[in-house]
Structure formats: C-alpha cells, structure tokens
C-alpha cells in the first residue's frame, strides 16, 4: 500500500481553479521532488495535504496511509505522521521552542497511546536533534521563530521534523533564502532523518537543493497538473532549459 495516493485532485481558491486534476503516488522510502514556476499551485497542494481551510476541494481523493485524508482534522493528520515544513514559518508569541515541541511530541504520543516523555528524556532528545541541524541551544528557549532570520526559521522547521519523526514530510521551498552552507546543513539534517519507512515530498524552485537531497522522482507542476515526471535528470534539464519549454509545450496542448 502506498503512503500517499492523490487521485485527480481539483481545488479552487475563491472560485478560481488552482489544481485541475493532480495525481501522485508516494511510497515509503521514496523522495519525490515537485518543481514548477511561481504560482503554479505547489504551496496549495501542500496546504491541502496539511488541512488548511482556505481551499475548496472540488473533486478527487487523497489517501494517507490508507485513510481518507479529508475525514481527518489537521492535528490528526499531523499525529498520524504528516509533517509540513512551511514555506513561510509562523512566529508564535510567548511560547518557547522547547515547550512548543514538548507539547507537540506529547500530543502525538498521547494519540499513539504512549506515555508522555519525561523531562530528562525530552531534553536529551531535543539537544540531539538540535545538533542535527547545528542549531544553537539558545534557540530552544526563544519564542517559536520570533526574531529568527529566514535561514534560522527554515532550520527550525527541519529541527521540528527531526523531533516529530513523521511518516511523510512535505518540504515547501525549504531551500529558498538559504545560503550554500545553510543549504548543506538543512539537507544533511533531512538525509539523517531519512529511512526506508518514511517518505519526502520536496517542493522546490531550483535544482540546487536536489544535489543534496537526491530525489527518486521529479515532477513538474504546471497549470494545476503534474505535466512531466521523470528521474533526477529531469531536474537538471529544467535547470538548463528553464520552464519555458514546458509552458510552450503544454500551453499549445491546452489551446
């Protein structure tokens, strides 16, 4: 059984069609990259998967680990192991990174009928995972993302990913705004979390990230559909030729 199965997904925002029949299947152990021009609907797809409410689902089905995802609340999707690294991570006032993660970890454990982690274990794991993304300890006591630089916010997303150990992680442009060193650190973090039981959907604009997080499949999202799929070579081709040839090819088909 595949971990994620999207079939003919059609989504509108304020009456405007954004996704127009998108299908995708992701198995455990796989990394899928989704590329596409700005405004093509990549973040919309991520938001629909995570359960954001701004969307109107017009048609299609999504199964996550065998369950109809539309019957699950956003928090239950998270507890079932779906993680979204946000393109624009949110700042939360008055809540330290540490207590935010402690609440999240223990909510997820409760859902799985596990005892809450005691303070010592939690601290140990947290320090370990912070090291994974080379995040300074001081960030753990600061309010979530408040006053973090763009790069620090992205690193914090991957730290949270490492803490929550999801089955499926969606990274929405985690590479944007990162310099090359930060990019390596973040990719390195992802590669360490990666195993044969989990899967990643990596949304990116640039091929650069895929040098470090090597995908099994690359898809191009254009005009609301995945119009081309291939192996990692496709990313190089896009890098070289840009998106124009796709636009030409598919616009002509549409016309």
């Amino acid at each position, binding site marked *: 059984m595949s971990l994620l199965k999207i079939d003919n997904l059609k989504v509108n925002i304020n009456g405007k069609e954004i996704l127009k029949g998108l299908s995708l299947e992701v198995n455990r152990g796989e990394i899928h990259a989704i590329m596409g021009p700005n405004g093509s609907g990549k973040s919309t797809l991520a938001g629909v998967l995570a359960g954001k409410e701004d969307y109107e689902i017009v048609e299609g089905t999504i199964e996550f680990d065998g369950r109809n995802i539309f019957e699950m609340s956003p928090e239950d999707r998270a507890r079932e192991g779906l993680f979204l690294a946000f393109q624009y991570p949110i700042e939360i*006032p*008055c809540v330290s990174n540490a207590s935010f993660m402690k609440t999240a970890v223990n909510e997820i454990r409760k859902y799985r009928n596990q005892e809450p982690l005691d303070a010592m274990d939690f601290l140990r794991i947290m320090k370990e995972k912070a090291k994974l993304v080379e995040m300074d300890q001081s960030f753990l006591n600061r309010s979530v993302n408040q006053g973090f630089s763009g790069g620090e916010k992205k690193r914090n997303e991957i730290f949270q990913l490492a803490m929550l150990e999801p089955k499926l992680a969606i990274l929405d442009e985690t590479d944007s705004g990162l310099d090359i060193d930060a990019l390596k650190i973040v990719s390195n973090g992802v590669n360490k979390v990666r195993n044969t039981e989990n899967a990643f959907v990596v949304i990116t604009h640039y091929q650069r990230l895929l040098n470090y997080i090597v995908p099994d499949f690359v898809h191009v999202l254009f005009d609301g559909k995945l119009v081309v799929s291939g192996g990692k070579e496709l990313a190089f081709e896009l890098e070289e030729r840009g998106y124009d040839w796709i636009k030409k090819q598919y616009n002509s088909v549409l016309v």
Partner: protein
Amino acid sequence: MNMQKEPINIVDELTQSDYKYGFVTDIEHELAPKGLNEDTIRFISAKKHEPEFMLEWRLKAFRFWQQMKEPKWANVKFPPIDYQDAYYYAAPKQSANKPKSLDEIDPEIRRTFEKLGIPLTEQQRLAGIAVDAVMDSVSVATTFKEKLSELGIIFCSMSEAIREHPDLVKKYIGSVVPYTDNYFAALNSAVFSDGSFCYIPKGVKCPLELSTYFRINASETGQFERTLIIADEGSYVSYLEGCTAPIRDENQLHAAVVELIAHKDAEIKYSTVQNWYPGDKEGKGGIYNFVTKRGICEGNNSKISWTQVETGSAITWKYPSCILKGDNSIGEFYSVALTNNYQQADTGTKMIHLGQNTKSRIVSKGISAGKSQNSYRGLVSVGKKAMNARNYSQCDSLLLGDKCGAHTFPYIEVKNNTATVEHEATTSKISEDILFYCNQRGISTEDAIGLIVNGFSREVLNQLPMEFAVEAQRLLAISLEGSVG
C-alpha cells in the same frame, strides 16, 4: 467527491465559552426594603448591631454620595444604573446569627461552597488556607480561627470586627480610601454589608494563606463588601480573594472597597482571582465590578504587592493602587485581565511615590477575545520629595481574533528629577495562521491557545500561591474554551 469542511472561523467558535459557576442556591434571604435612603442605611447598621460611630460614618458617606455624579471617564459603556431599583442587604436566613461552629452551617450553603471547591466543614478544611466565606451580604463561615488567634492574628468578618474590635476599625477604616474618594467608594461606605477584616500583630509572619471567597446568590441585589487588612510592624501576610455569581439576565452591581495598611518592615501580598459572572455570549447580564482597592506603605521598608487574575464580570473597573509613603517602600502590581464576548475591562494601577528610594513594578497582561474591550489604565506619580524613586512598567496585550480591542493609557507625573520611570508595551495576536501552524504540529486549537495564553501570563501566575496558580491557569483556559470539535 470530497468536500472539505466549510471554512469556519476557529477563533469565533473558540470564544463561545460557558460559565461553570452559574447555579443558584435555593435558600431564603432576608432583605432590606428595596431602594436606597437613610432608612436603608439605618436598617443595615441595626441588623449588624453596629456601634454609633459606624452608623454616623455611613450616613456621612451617604449624604456625600448624594451630591456626587457617576463618573464617566473609563473606557467602558453601560446603561444608567437605577440605584433605587436594587436591594442593599440580603442575608441567607439562617445566618442572622452566624453559626458558632462550621458544622452548624446550613447544608444548602455548605453545598454551594463545596460546588465551588471551598469545603466548610471541620474535617475537610483546605490545608494551609484559612477561608472567610461571604454569601451575598454576610460572612457565613471562617475557618482556622482559633489557630490564628493563638498568634494574635485577627481574621474575621467585617461585621464582627466592627463589634469586637471597634478601636482598630475606627482607626483604620476610610484611612486609605476615604468615603470622599469616588462615587462607588462613597456608595460602598454608606451601605457596605460585610467583608473580611484582618490584623497581623507586630513581628508575626502569618503561617496560613488567608482567603475570602465571595459569592453573590440573591437576585436584584448589589454586593458591597469592604475589606481591611492591617500588617503591623515587621509582619507578613498573604491574602487571597475569589468570587463567583449565578447566571442572571440582569446586571448586578458589585462595588467593593479594599484597604491595606503596611507598617514599618511589613509586607502584604494581596491576590485576587475574580470570576464574577461575565454575562452571556450576547452580552446580556453579568456583574458590574466597580471596585476601589488601595494600599498604603505607611512605614519604611514596607511592601505591598497586588496580583490579580480577572476573567469575570460584564464590566470591570478597578485600579489596585499603592501609596508609597515610607522610605524604601515597594509597590507591585501584577495583572492578567481576560475579556471575552462583550466583556469590558478598564483596569490598571496607580503607584504614588512619596518616600525616598521607593520602587514600583507594574506588569499588566491583557487578553482580549470575542468582541470584548480590554484597557490598561495606569498612573505613575513621583512626588517632590521622592528622591531616587524608580518605576518599571510593562503592558502587554494579546488579541484573539480581530473583533476585540486592547488599549493602554499610561499616565506619568514626575515632580522629582532623580526619578527613573520606564515603560514598555507589546501587542501580539493569535491569528488563524498561528493556530494552523500549531495544528500542523499535532496540537489542537484549544491546547494551542492554552499554551500561548499560559506563556503570556506566566510572569503574573508565578506570583500566585501554588494552588491558586493552577486554578487560575485552568480558569484562563475555560474562559476561552469553546466548541471546536
């Protein structure tokens, strides 16, 4: 075909809370005739077997009040109050003579307080806390009295203090809040029915938390209690008040006066967890909480600390204040005020620096949800002789949704150029984006709000005695609790 849930406004849903203390106890009340005139006041005074000086004082206050006009300056709105259309004295029938022992209390009244988490039997008394329970106009029980009196501590109802310790009452009542102070203080001075009295003798550190629990039960009554706490030289006391009222459509007036006196080297810590009925979701009913609270640091090196967690009342209008008269004296004000639905709060403090090297600290946290309005109003005043006075004020606002309002009105008057006055303010908002981000990490909306509200209020909650901090935390959460499925 799958339809995702219609977009709903989570914040709207969340702020539909239910008041858990809204039950009415079915007991008979003895009432004064409706309305307010000199006879009402004579009736109250006679009921309480008061000495002549008290009646005289009440009448003077009443005559003064009649000359006054209801103040209009606070940032709150309410229809005119008809002062003749209310009862000014309501006593649960049995307690015309207060029971001698806790076990003689009317079972109905005892059950009321048990439901509120305040056991009044000898066996079940709260450990480490002495409680004075006040229902409507009268004190119905005081626990741990004997134990306290061994140390010379007087902790009793105000009525009892007027009868048994008239010299102390005469000396101190109105000494911090004179009846001429303001409209509601004058009204209270005329008609106050009961309240708590507390005297800590020289050098005694009170080993128990002293606590008064106020409950309005009767309808169409106002509650006017008066609390007086005197900490003699070198003494210490921590005092806590809590309050609730049944759900009623009408607005009920609560106009209390609290006076604190800290002598040389003494410290008074006064905490309030205020949970009067706030009115329903449409803004109908609820308590008007118009309270005058003031303490004076009379002696050198004395300290008064106010901590308040305000979640109830339709309208809250109060400014617990400190007059820092003694040199090196310290005043503190820690406040969390939460408003939801149509609640209005205009609250803050006044720190009046008169002595040298006096210090004050103000930490105010306002949480607004629903269509509520939450204002901080504070005055820091430094007198001519207050050399090296220091004040630090911090006013933070947290907004839940975008139909509520937060306002700050900090006033500063400095007449001595050696003073240091600092003011900081922040405003944060719990947006739908924040809640979704929390949801995406497996945290439900309610828990997310709880997490943020607790983090926001922590500095104030930490000031409360342990048991009450937990209670207050729970109260904040349920005041915002809703029907999110």
